[in-house]
């Protein structure tokens, strides 16, 4: 019995190809049945996320199965095989096993060490199992892959630190305020990055107040979309008492919030902590404001710097992760050899 994987991902194919080959969850049963009817492997599993589409299989007549699987992908995507064949990777064991362990652990993801993929692998496995497409080999392989992903997270620092600007800002806010539920976020300006950070905070229960001088209509539209409130520029300072996080992202060429102004705000707020996020370039908030008690000021460079350091730190863990995955592949191949007497 041999384990194979055939597919493409964000490293081998552009989004135009990936979106054509992607398999939505409601089509999963149909696609798996179609593969079964075609005789693609003895056991089979489909893993389709926004970054990858992969067919995992275990069987004996592998070359034939691979040919049939390619034909299936071509039919499903309505693309000629020649249009994407060179973007496909076909891996036999033990590389296929190593590949799955890396995928499940997030080492193969666009954001190294991300955790969403563990859930996606689990869902793909449970679906294939539910539709009776897996057997002894794929059951053992996928169950082990989930264990490997878990142990990698506990034995290494691959999941440490946030790696996007928005998630870094959320993490910081969570270290200032007990929870973000009910925290009021005021956004001055309608810049894309500021909106992203606001959305990330809203997902944790924060309430937005959108302010804009030049684009008040856009602020109103965003406030409606995000479930918040639009505040006229002239009135925003009267609402400072209510807020906990203040994000600026305007196109103003000069500093618009001076340290002295922030000092007055703090008095009005009875010294309640204030998290200032300056996403604008040139900066909107006087850097001297960070010296005030209970004021925590971060600008775009600070946030990007933290995200980059976390990324670099995660990447520094790759070697150790690869070593652990190699060991786990060895264990699995040992088990496979004992069970089926196949080549290692």
């Amino acid at each position, binding site marked *: 019995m041999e384990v194979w994987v055939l597919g493409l991902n964000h490293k081998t194919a552009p989004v135009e190809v990936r979106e054509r080959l992607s398999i939505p969850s409601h089509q999963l049963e149909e696609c798996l049945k179609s593969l079964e009817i075609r005789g693609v492997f003895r056991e089979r599993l489909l893993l389709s996320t926004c970054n990858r589409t992969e067919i995992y299989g275990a069987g004996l007549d592998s070359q034939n199965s691979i040919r049939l699987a390619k034909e299936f992908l071509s039919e499903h995507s309505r693309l000629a095989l020649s249009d994407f064949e060179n973007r496909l990777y076909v891996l036999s064991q033990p590389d296929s096993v190593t590949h799955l362990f890396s995928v499940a652990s997030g080492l193969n993801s666009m954001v190294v060490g991300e955790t969403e993929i563990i859930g996606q692998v689990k869902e793909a496995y449970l679906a294939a199992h539910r539709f009776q497409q897996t057997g002894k080999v794929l059951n053992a392989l996928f169950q082990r892959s989930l264990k490997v992903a878990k142990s990698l997270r506990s034995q290494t620092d691959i999941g440490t630190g946030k790696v996007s600007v928005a998630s870094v800002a959320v993490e910081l806010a969570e*270290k200032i305020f*007990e929870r973000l539920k009910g925290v009021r976020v005021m956004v001055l300006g309608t810049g894309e990055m500021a909106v992203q950070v606001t959305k990330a905070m809203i997902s944790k229960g924060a309430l937005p107040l959108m302010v804009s001088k030049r684009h008040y209509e856009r602020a109103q539209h965003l406030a409606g979309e995000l479930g918040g409130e639009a505040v006229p520029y002239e009135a925003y300072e009267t609402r400072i008492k209510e807020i906990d996080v203040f994000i600026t992202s305007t196109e103003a060429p000069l500093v618009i919030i001076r340290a002295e102004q922030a000092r007055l705000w703090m008095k009005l707020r*009875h*010294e309640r*902590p204030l998290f200032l996020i300056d996403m604008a370039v040139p900066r909107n908030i006087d850097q001297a404001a960070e010296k005030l*008690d209970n004021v*925590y000021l*971060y600008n775009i460079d600070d946030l990007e*710097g933290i995200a980059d350091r976390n990324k670099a730190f995660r990447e520094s863990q790759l070697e150790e992760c690869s070593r652990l995955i190699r060991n786990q592949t060895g264990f699995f191949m040992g088990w496979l050899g004992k069970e089926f007497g196949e080549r290692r």
Partner: protein
Amino acid sequence: MSFAVYILIFLGYFASFVCYGFDLVFEEEGALLYGKRLLFSSLLAHGVSLVVSVSREPRWVAAYFSESLYLVSFLLVLLLWILERRFGVRFFVLFSLPVVLLLYLLAVLSMGRQGDSLGSALFSKWLWIHTGFIWGGLAGFVAAVSCALMYLFQSWQLKSKRWGKLFVNLPSLQTLDRFHFAFLSIGAILFSLGILGGLFWAKEIKEMGGLWRDPKVFLSFLTCAVYWSVLGLRLSSLRRGQKIAAGTVLVFGLLFVTLMSSTYAPSGFHAGF
């Protein structure tokens, strides 16, 4: 009780502190497990030593200064152990243990400095009311100072934009502020009740006149007043966060001087106790 036993208990607490520190910095689960075991074993030995003391001489166990420190350090570790078991707050144990270690060490070192016998005072109801509340208040202040130290550390990390592993493991500023405020309130109330108990006691034995010449009484009033001022500032929201946390740490220094004043003061109602 043999001096070696006291030292062994101290070393147990110290080793536990090292293990907790190792766990927090290097996230070693094994170290945390050893830390918990050491803390519990030392706490058990500490409790047994108190029981042995009482069984040898049946009276209030916190009559003398060294005994009081010995009891309060036990109560503090017990409180930490319960909090850890109930809420899993290992960071709290780590930041409180140094203060506990200091109190414990002082207790052991001042064992030979015991003052004159308390005589009939040993059996007065006011003795346990007075000392019980005072040491209860001290326990609250130790917990408050731990939270204040964590607050200052976390705040410094946020301001300096230099995050270590401690940043991830410590709770949010708001959580620390909440705990700090709660412990400070408990400490101030119990400490005030202890002082009040002492005043009633002095009145009962007609010692009110001499009481005011005692440096410990004066310093206790001062410390209590400063603690209530800090609490008042926090309650009125005139000051929050770093300044209040720094205030708690500074006032704890004054509390420490108050504690030590009677041991080293040549005269006064509390001299030698």
